[in-house]
C-alpha cells in the first residue's frame, strides 16, 4: 500500500475566546476554551465526521481549520503548507482549494443577490475565467446540484430550504476545491429533504474526489456519510476511529453513552435495550473540570480521572481514545486479534 499524505493535518489546535470585563480599560478575565488542543488528519477524497453535543467546539474547530477564525495556537497544514504562517493574500489564493457549506441556508446566502450572482461569486473573487464562459459554467453547476438553470435570475427567497442548501453546495464546488468543511449542512432540513442533500453530497464527493470535514450533532447522519469519525467533548477529541469501528466498538465511555442515547426508529429494539443515561449537563467551557473533562458525568471516573488529563492514544489500528479506563470488555475482544502482528503460541 502506498503511503498517502494527508491533505489537512491539524496539530494541537487551540482556539480560546477571551472573556473581558471593564468598560474602557478592558481586562481579560478568562477564556472560553472552545477548542483546546485537537489534532486530526484528513486524507484526499475521504470524509471525516466531527461529532459532539452543542458547545463541544466542533463548529469552532471547523471554522478554525479554514482560518475563518484565527487560531490561538497550534498548526494547520494544508497540502504541506502551514496555513497559520501564510499571508492574508496567499490565504485568499489558497481558499480556492478549501470551501465551506453552512448550516443555515437562509442566512448564508445574500438575499439581494440572484442565484446566478451567488454561484458566480467564487469565480469573480478568484479571478477565474471558466472555459465556455461564466454563464454556462454556473448553469452546469446548477444542473449538477439539481437546480433548474433557468432559475439563474431568481432570488434566494424564492427557493425552499433544501433548494437553498443546493445553491450553497453549488457555490462551494464551483472552483473544484480539494476540501470542504460542511458545518451541520442538513440539520435545518426536514428528513425527506435531508436525505436528498446527503445523497447529493456523496455523489459530488465521488465525482470530484473532494475531502469533507463533516461537522454535525446527529450521529446517524455522521455514520451514514463518514469514513472516519472524531468525537468531541468540551473542546477536546475523546475518541477517533474508522466509522464502523466507532459505532460497533466504542472505547470511550462518552461515545458509548452518546450512542446509547440515540433513540432507534424500531420499537422492539428501542424498548428492549439497555440505555446509559448520563446525569447532569455539559460543564462550562470557560471553566472545564480538571483532569479528564468528562469526569463530572462519567460513571467510571476514579481519582486519577479528576487529576490527570488522559492523552489521545492509539489502542488499535486507527482507533484512538483519550481515556484512562477505556471500555474494558471491548478492549479484550480487540486484543484477541492484534493487528499487524503474528500470533505466537
Amino acid at each position, binding site marked *: 500500500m502506498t503511503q498517502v499524505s494527508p491533505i489537512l493535518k491539524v496539530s494541537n489546535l487551540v482556539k480560546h475566546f477571551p472573556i473581558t470585563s471593564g468598560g474602557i480599560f478592558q481586562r481579560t478575565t478568562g477564556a472560553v476554551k472552545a477548542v483546546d488542543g485537537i489534532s486530526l488528519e484528513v486524507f484526499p477524497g475521504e470524509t471525516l465526521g466531527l461529532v459532539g453535543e452543542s458547545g463541544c467546539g466542533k463548529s469552532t474547530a471547523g471554522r478554525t481549520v479554514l482560518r475563518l477564525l484565527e487560531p490561538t495556537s497550534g498548526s494547520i497544514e494544508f497540502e504541506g503548507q502551514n496555513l497559520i504562517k501564510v499571508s492574508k493574500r496567499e490565504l485568499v489564493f489558497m481558499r480556492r482549494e478549501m470551501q465551506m457549506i453552512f448550516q443555515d441556508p437562509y442566512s448564508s446566502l445574500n438575499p439581494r443577490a440572484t442565484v446566478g450572482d451567488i454561484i458566480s461569486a467564487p469565480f469573480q473573487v478568484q479571478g477565474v475565467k471558466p472555459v465556455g464562459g461564466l454563464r454556462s459554467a454556473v448553469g452546469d453547476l446548477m444542473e449538477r446540484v439539481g437546480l433548474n438553470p433557468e432559475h439563474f435570475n431568481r432570488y434566494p427567497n424564492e427557493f425552499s430550504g433544501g433548494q437553498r442548501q443546493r445553491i450553497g453546495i453549488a457555490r462551494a464546488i464551483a472552483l473544484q476545491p480539494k476540501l470542504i468543511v460542511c458545518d451541520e449542512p442538513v440539520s435545518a432540513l426536514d428528513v425527506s429533504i*435531508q436525505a436528498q442533500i446527503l*445523497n447529493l453530497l456523496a455523489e459530488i464527493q465521488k465525482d470530484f474526489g473532494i475531502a469533507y470535514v463533516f461537522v454535525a450533532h446527529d450521529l446517524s447522519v455522521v455514520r*451514514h456519510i463518514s469514513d472516519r469519525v472524531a468525537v468531541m467533548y468540551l473542546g477536546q477529541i475523546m475518541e477517533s476511529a474508522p466509522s464502523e469501528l466507532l459505532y460497533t466498538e466504542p472505547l470511550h465511555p462518552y461515545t458509548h453513552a452518546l450512542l446509547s442515547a440515540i433513540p432507534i426508529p424500531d420499537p422492539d429494539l428501542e424498548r428492549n435495550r439497555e440505555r446509559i443515561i448520563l446525569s447532569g449537563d455539559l460543564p462550562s467551557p470557560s471553566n472545564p473540570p480538571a483532569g479528564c473533562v468528562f469526569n463530572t458525568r462519567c460513571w467510571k471516573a476514579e481519582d486519577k480521572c479528576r487529576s490527570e488529563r488522559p492523552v489521545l492514544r492509539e489502542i488499535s489500528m486507527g482507533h484512538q481514545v483519550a481515556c484512562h479506563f477505556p471500555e474494558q470488555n471491548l478492549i479484550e475482544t480487540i486484543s484477541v486479534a492484534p493487528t499487524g502482528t503474528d500470533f505466537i503460541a
Partner: protein
Amino acid sequence: MSETDEVLLSVRNLYVEFATDDGLVSAVNDLSYDLKRGKTLAIVGESGSGKSVSSMALMGLVAGMNAKVSGEVYFDGQQLIGADPESVRKLRGDRMAMIFQDPLSSLHPFFRIGDQLVEAVQVHHDIDKKQAQVRVKAMLERVGIPDVDQRMNEYPHQLSGGMRQRVMIGMSLINNPELLIADEPTTALDVTVQAQILELLKDLQKEFGTAIILITHDLGVVADMADEVVVMYGGSAVEHAPVREIFYEPAMPYTWGLIASIPQISAKNAHLDPIPGNPPSLINLPSGCVFAPRCAFKQLVGDDLCEHERPQLSLISLEHASRCHLTENQRTDIRRARLIGRQK
C-alpha cells in the same frame, strides 16, 4: 382496566384555516383521532404538515380574525370547539397542559422560576402562596432540579436548556393534568439530555396517568414513546396505527418514504431513498391525494385516480387506517420488493 380504556380526548373532523394575503391556507384538513387515558399518541410529520397547529387548535390557542377552526373536539365529554373561551381557559393549565419546543421563549424572562410555577398553581387553586410554594418545590424536586431552593429564586436564563425543559415539564404537570401536549419537547436538546427528558416523561406518565400527545418529526423518539401514531402530511392524517404496525407494516407511501429517508444508527445503509420533490403548499392543495405529486406508486393505481380523487382514511385492519388508493396486494408486493418494514 376500565379506566385506562376510557377515551379522554376525541377529535372529529377538525379543520383549521387561515386567511392570508396569498389565499386561504388549509393548515388542518379533516383530522380525527381518539386518545385514551394514560396513553401516548405521537403525531409525526414534517414542517407544515399541520401537526402543531392541530394541537394548538384543540387547546383553544388558535384564535384571531384570520383563523377559522371547525369540527368537534371532546375532552372528557366536553365540546371545546366553539365553547365559551373562559371555560376552555379554566381547563388549560389545569386538566390539560402543553410544553413547547423552546423552553426559553415559553418561560417569562422577567420572573423567577418559583414565582412562575406558584402562579400556575394559584390560577387554578384557591390556596395561599406558602402552600403553593411547598407544592412547587416538591414538583421541581420530582423533575430532577438540583438545589431547588436556590433555583426557585433564579431567572430562566440562568438555567441550561435541559434544566429549563425540566422546569417546563414541572410547570405543565403541577396541577396533575389528564392531558399533556408535548410539542417537539426534545428537539432543541442534545441527545444525552434528550434521553434524560424522555425517561422523565415516561416515569411521570406512569406515576400520574397522564395522556400525552407527542408531536415530533423524530421517528426514533416515536419508537421509544408512542402507543399509537398518526402520520400527517399536507394537513391531513395519512396513516394511523399502533406504533409497531407503523414501523413493521407501514401502509402509506409517504410513511415508507419517511422511514427510508432516515439514516440508521444501527446499520450503515449505503444509499438513502429520499422522497423526491418538496412538501405541498397549503394554499392550493392538489384536488387528488395530497401526496400524489411525490408518490412513486401512483401509476399502479391507474386511471389517474390519485390525481383526481382524494382517498379516504379507511381501515385496512382492525386498528390500522391509511389514506391511499393502493390495494392490499399491491402494498404487500411493494413492501416485499423494497424491503420496507419487517419481513415475514
